[in-house]
């Protein structure tokens, strides 16, 4: 697209350029730094060192194996669950509606912690069985990683699949039956090919999330090397020295995720079938023993997903002596510590996540508007660059920010700014995605009507477009807030003493095996996440999941 003289008079080109500058500095520059540091950093080539490092290579291999296994287990749980909830009505179905909420509400670090409190070496269930002389296998390593990640990530497969099954045009099945295939066969032959792309897409999403996962990997991998763990360890051990190995590992992670995203895009482009006027099937009631079994299995999955909430609520009020939990003895001391003795993490979390959400939402509303409604030569680049964070794990992003803003022309290390920046960049795609989706649905004629009535373009944006985006912005704000508050992997790399957030605090306390304190901070963390959701949905009637 050429830049015309008339473009220079309107404010949009200048705004686009300003946004581009911001994105270049805070997204492109850090990524470029990582890529170059792996080759040129400190006069050493990270790649030749990686090839001679068996631990690094096995970390890559383990990560791929782990991601494959977890993806498969998630599909095995998520798809059947989605199918029965989309197509049937049965006893206990309403609690399955809680699923999307659970993924949002429980930060990964807390899932890992609570599973450990139940099944770890000193866990509730482990001790229960030990009393009967049964020794459970150790929860550290593959067993724990696969279990926890499966129950954290299967909901993504569930959500992706349930949407496509519900949206599937049921007349297609009828057409197949009218042509002579039995109901069951019709479903397999006609529905499966149509919903397969969404299953694959959500499975690949799970794969990338396992590859990028930090909290669960750190807490449960123990001596098993994983990519995100060795990356973090390299970042910590290299400290102020040349960031060679951390950049190399980070690059490996970026390449891996990029490959998967391209694969995903290819699948979607091949498989996006236009469904004309889908008439979803009405869920059929199943009762009797079949209904009971399905209801029981489905509820079991959901209840297991809810276990972290219960364990943490109990743990937060349980007396502890160092690492030893005295189950059954209650106290308020842990909560006292969170609110009175050491409230800094709570305050930090509220401020950093609040500022990050505010800036992120304003920025993404404006930039999305430019991308969708005011296309010019710059806006495609805004689109590409603002989606880069999707390909970066938190660890990679954290390394990028540290490497780029440690010293030099813009030293931010140790400031609150870099904390906010880490949250902001990491969660930017949330706001962008939901803003763009609504803008696509606002017809250009509405703006043109406003302008034809004499309102100038910028005023039209604020008076007409922005209010129409309101509901989507609200839901994006809630999502950004909750995911920012639970962010760990990027912020743990950029924080400095006194700037701990709740998640960082929980993570450190788990590291020191102080589970009671960790539970107390964790419970407050969950409250900080839940309260805005409840207020938004009940008081302001925001559909939090509209953009999900």
């Amino acid at each position, binding site marked *: 697209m050429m830049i015309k003289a008339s473009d220079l008079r309107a404010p949009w080109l200048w705004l686009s350029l300003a946004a581009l500058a911001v994105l270049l500095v805070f997204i492109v520059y850090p990524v470029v730094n990582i890529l170059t540091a792996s080759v040129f950093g400190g006069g050493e080539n990270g790649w030749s060192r990686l090839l001679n490092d068996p631990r690094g290579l096995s970390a890559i291999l383990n990560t791929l194996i782990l991601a494959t296994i977890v993806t498969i287990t998630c599909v095995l749980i998520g798809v059947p669950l989605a199918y029965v909830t989309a197509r049937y009505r049965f006893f206990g179905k309403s609690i399955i509606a809680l699923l999307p909420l659970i993924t949002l509400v429980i930060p990964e670090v807390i899932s890992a912690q609570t599973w450990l409190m139940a099944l770890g070496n000193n866990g509730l269930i482990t001790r229960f069985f030990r009393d009967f002389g049964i020794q459970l296998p150790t929860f550290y390593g593959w067993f724990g990683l696969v279990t926890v990640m499966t129950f954290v990530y299967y909901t993504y497969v569930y959500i992706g699949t349930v949407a496509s099954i519900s949206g599937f*045009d049921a*007349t*297609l099945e*009828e*057409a*197949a*039956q*009218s*042509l*002579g*295939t*039995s*109901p069951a066969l*019709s479903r397999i032959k*006609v529905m499966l*090919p*149509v919903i397969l792309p969404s299953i694959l897409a959500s499975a690949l999403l799970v794969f990338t999330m396992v590859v990028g996962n930090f909290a669960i990997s750190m807490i449960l991998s123990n001596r098993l090397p994983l990519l995100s763990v060795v990356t973090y360890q390299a970042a910590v051990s290299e400290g102020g020295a040349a960031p060679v190995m951390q950049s190399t590992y980070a690059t490996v992670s970026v390449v891996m995720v990029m490959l998967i995203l391209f694969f995903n895009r290819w699948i979607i482009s091949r*498989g996006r*079938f*236009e*469904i*004309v*006027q889908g*008439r979803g099937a009405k869920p059929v009631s199943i009762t009797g023993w079949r209904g009971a079994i399905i209801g029981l299995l489905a509820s079991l999955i959901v209840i297991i997903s809810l276990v972290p909430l219960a364990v943490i609520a109990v743990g937060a009020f349980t007396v502890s002596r160092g690492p030893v939990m005295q189950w059954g003895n209650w106290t308020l001391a842990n909560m006292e510590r969170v609110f009175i003795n050491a409230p800094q993490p709570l305050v930090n979390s509220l401020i950093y996540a609040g500022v990050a959400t505010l800036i992120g939402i304003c920025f993404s509303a404006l930039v999305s508007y430019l991308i969708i409604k005011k296309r010019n030569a710059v806006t495609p680049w805004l689109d590409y660059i603002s989606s880069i964070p999707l390909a970066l794990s938190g660890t990679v992003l954290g390394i990028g920010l540290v490497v780029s803003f440690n010293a030099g022309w813009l030293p931010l290390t140790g400031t609150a700014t870099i904390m906010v920046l880490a949250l902001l960049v990491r969660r930017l795609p949330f706001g962008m995605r939901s803003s763009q989706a609504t803008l696509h649905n606002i017809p250009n004629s509405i703006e043109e009507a406003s302008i034809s009535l004499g309102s100038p373009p910028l005023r039209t944006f604020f008076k007409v477009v922005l209010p129409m985006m309101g509901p989507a912005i609200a839901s994006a704000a809630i999502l950004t807030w909750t995911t920012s508050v639970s962010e760990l992997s990027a912020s743990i790399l950029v924080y400095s003493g006194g700037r701990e957030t709740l998640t960082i605090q929980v993570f450190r306390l788990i590291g020191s095996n102080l589970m009671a304190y960790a539970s107390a901070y964790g419970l407050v963390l969950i409250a900080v996440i839940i309260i805005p959701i409840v207020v938004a949905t009940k008081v302001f009637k925001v559909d939090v999941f509209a953009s999900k």
Partner: protein
Amino acid sequence: MGINIKNLYVNYGGLDVIADLSLTIPEGCFFTLLGPSGCGKTTLLRTIAGFVQASKGNIHFQSQDVTRLPPHKRNIGMVFQDYALFPDKTVAENVAYGLRARGESGDAMMKKVRHELEHVGLGHVMDRHPAALSGGQRQRVALARALVIKPQVLLMDEPLSNLDAKLRIQIRETITDLQREANITTVFVTHDQEEALSMSDQIGVMNKGKVEQLGTPKEIYATPRTSYVADFVGAANRLNVRLADANADGTARIQLGGASILARNTLPSAVQEGILIMRPEDLRLRPQAAADGQGLQGRIVKRQYLGGKTSYKLALDGDIVISVESHGDNHDGFEIGTDVSATIDPSKAMVIAS
């Protein structure tokens, strides 16, 4: 293969959407179920297909009782309102689907597929996906898919409602041509009276889960048995009237707006009150001065020029307004405010029970 429906009941959530419906559709007949939305016509079609279960009564295809047979065993061809083409399959694979379900494969099957698609004029899009087709093309693929399996009966659920006006007329012809050629018993559901009149051998006008009148297009149009049918099929002036006097030859004299006209009388002999039905296009307008006191006397209050005809509203004495459509030369020759007289052939005006 004729269709025989006996004392059929269909119940949705405690409500009988079809109640005690009996209907015989002869072999090879193009039968149309006509009615407004919610009248039960689609439900009836889906019950014939087997997607909706009858709560009482039965359905026979010729001598075979299919009431409890699942849809895939009924050997039907169905064309859906939104086409329901499989989006992941090519046009050829869509058409081949039913043949494959019947165990066919290979070149012989593909030959049938190609032949059927060429028949509907789509031999050149066999390898495309439905998303790449226009609405009319999708419709024809759906038709080919339903016909290639040589079904016992062809069922069509408002298949033309998603097409634009010109295309609709074109596909209408395609459908009737194919149907005549295959001589296949067809049930066609529509709310469009023009479609029903132009395509059908027989029409069943449906209202509230019942067939209100059954007949050929001409019978339905010319001799509606109820006020509902008269109004739904074509336009009609419907006026509550009292017979002034009934003649032995089946006509009756009626006082209307200060004038009197003759009409066909279908009321039982004891009944004096009914509804006078006059189709706007059956009324003839003349200047009052030239009419010599004959016909309904009124004044033109509205006038709509429609190209081939002009539609007038005529105010009679006593706050009665009737519609009149004028055809032929100089059909737009009356200005608003003109006093006119409207006459009607006594065989075209009809008094029916209210």
